[in-house]
């Protein structure tokens, strides 16, 4: 009996000694800390948004590894084995680093993509501004250009805030605005192409009359922003002129900012008393203008309360290098002095939108 007790005590002692002194592995706590730090880094790099799949996988792997480590911790020391926990956490670490890399790459890609789109958009906008600078359609185009400029600005702000998706949407809207502008310009040029023969015939008639009577006449090419003084059908002098701020179309009503198109005559020569140095009053509206005005009213193109306007002049105070009048034609005071030497009441003034007569 005693022997039995001694043996039992011995076995218990040996078991206790084995448990206490058997070299058992340590839990991978450092690795766990590294994984957590890698996940924090990934989170800061935006992985939860830009590399969500790998980030969430890394989180899950860390959790599994942690649980496995805990499971092993609960076992008796000689039976602990952290190999599975180790590999799960190592996988998690790799995945977390991968998520950081993926997020950084994705962000870098989005950044360069968005900045590229923004730069292209900005270039297109500048190109449009350059192309339309000085053209009659500039005023109408400004509606689209202003919106595009505003969207360009907002896009820049969004990029600086790293809101790439929103920035790209904003840029796309800006591009839509430029597309609408492009459509408008196409329609405008198509209209020009269809009507060039009419304007050309007006110019030819004016030249023929001038030739027949050996008289002076003034031809104004709105697109070229030039006024031509002719005598006997020959070009005598060219003046740079400025027009109504909205001269892409024929004048329809008072206050529309357009310079009229048609065959007119000088009805008064104002050598003094003009607000704009000196002036030559034209017979706008003529019969043709009145007919067009009434028709536009009937068709509802203009308001029924609109007035036809008047007092269209060739006057001084020009030289502002932009279209700024309400519909008149402005030249510099010096050129006004020059022009007034040759023209008088009754001198024909033909205004066309485009002409191919002179360069």
């Amino acid at each position, binding site marked *: 009996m005693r022997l039995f007790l001694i043996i039992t005590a011995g076995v218990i002692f040996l078991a206790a000694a084995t448990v206490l002194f058997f070299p058992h592995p340590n839990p991978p706590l450092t690795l766990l800390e590294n994984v957590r730090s890698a996940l924090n880094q990934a989170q800061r790099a935006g992985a939860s948004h830009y590399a969500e799949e790998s980030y969430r996988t890394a989180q899950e792997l860390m959790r599994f590894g942690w649980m496995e480590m*805990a499971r092993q*911790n609960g076992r008796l020391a000689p039976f602990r084995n952290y190999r599975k926990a180790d590999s799960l956490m190592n996988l998690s670490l790799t995945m977390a680093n991968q998520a950081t890399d993926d997020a950084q790459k994705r962000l870098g890609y989005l950044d360069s993509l968005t900045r590229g789109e923004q730069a292209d958009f900005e270039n297109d906008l500048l190109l449009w501004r350059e192309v339309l600078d000085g053209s009659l359609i500039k005023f109408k185009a400004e509606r689209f250009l202003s*919106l595009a400029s*505003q969207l360009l600005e907002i896009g820049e702000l969004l990029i600086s805030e790293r809101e790439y998706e929103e920035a790209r949407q904003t840029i796309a809207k800006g591009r839509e605005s430029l597309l609408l502008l492009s459509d408008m310009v196409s329609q405008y040029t198509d209209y020009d192409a269809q009507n060039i023969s009419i304007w050309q015939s007006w110019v030819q008639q004016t030249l023929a009359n001038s030739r027949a009577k050996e008289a002076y006449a003034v031809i104004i090419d709105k697109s070229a922003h030039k006024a031509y003084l002719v005598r006997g059908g020959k070009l005598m002098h060219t003046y740079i002129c400025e027009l109504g701020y909205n001269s892409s179309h024929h004048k329809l009503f008072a206050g529309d900012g357009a310079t009229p198109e048609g065959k007119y005559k000088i009805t008064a020569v104002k050598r003094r008393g003009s607000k704009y140095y000196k002036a030559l009053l034209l017979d706008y509206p003529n019969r043709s203008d009145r007919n067009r005005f009434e028709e536009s009213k009937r068709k509802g193109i203009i308001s029924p309360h609109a007035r036809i306007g008047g007092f269209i002049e060739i006057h001084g105070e020009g030289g502002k290098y932009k279209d700024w009048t309400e519909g008149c034609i402005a030249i510099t005071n010096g050129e006004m002095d020059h022009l007034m030497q040759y023209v008088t009441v009754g001198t024909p003034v033909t205004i066309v939108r485009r002409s191919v007569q002179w360069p």
Partner: protein
Amino acid sequence: MQARRACACPCFLSKLNPAERNGQMFKRLALTAVVCALLAFAGCGKAPEQEMQMANTAIEAAKTAEAEKYVPDIYQMAMDTLNAAMAARQETDSKFALFRSYGKSKEMFLRAEALAKEATDAAQAEKERVKTEVLNLLAQAREALDSANAALSKAPRGKGSKADIELIKNDFNAANLTYQEASSDYEAGKYAAAKTKLDGVIRKAQSILEEIKKAAAKKIGK
């Protein structure tokens, strides 16, 4: 010597008569059984299922409140505490039944729940703060646009300035469109985008006012 041989009980009982011996032995056995039962009950504590459930529910609520986006630090802390609690529970589960004690994991689950609730509250507060900020910006932008519009309608339209005013109108319309977009973003909960757009609108409205002043000055100068 003979009595000793006949007895199978421990030696200290051998000096007692058989009746006393049986009584004592019974008492000791009963005592041992009670101690073992107590140890077993103490050791095999109940797993903190309810606490775990509550902590998980609180974390889900924090997720719904977008705590990961608005208060990432507190949310991360709550998640870490939940993971640690789960690990502690797992560790206890792995132990021999007699040595199980869930006190530590229970306490950690409660801590994780409290942190998750804190994250939810903080996220809601932060979201509310951002929302209020954007709402204020919306009001500011509206006010700036209204001022610009009022200035535009009062701006002197004469030869030379009418064209400028008409062009400024385009800028105003563009700013107004951006304002409407920002309002939609606000309604959709895209506060960051709305904020950025509204900053742009306010800036534009201010530049419009400046432009109108310039155009008016030009008119007076004329």
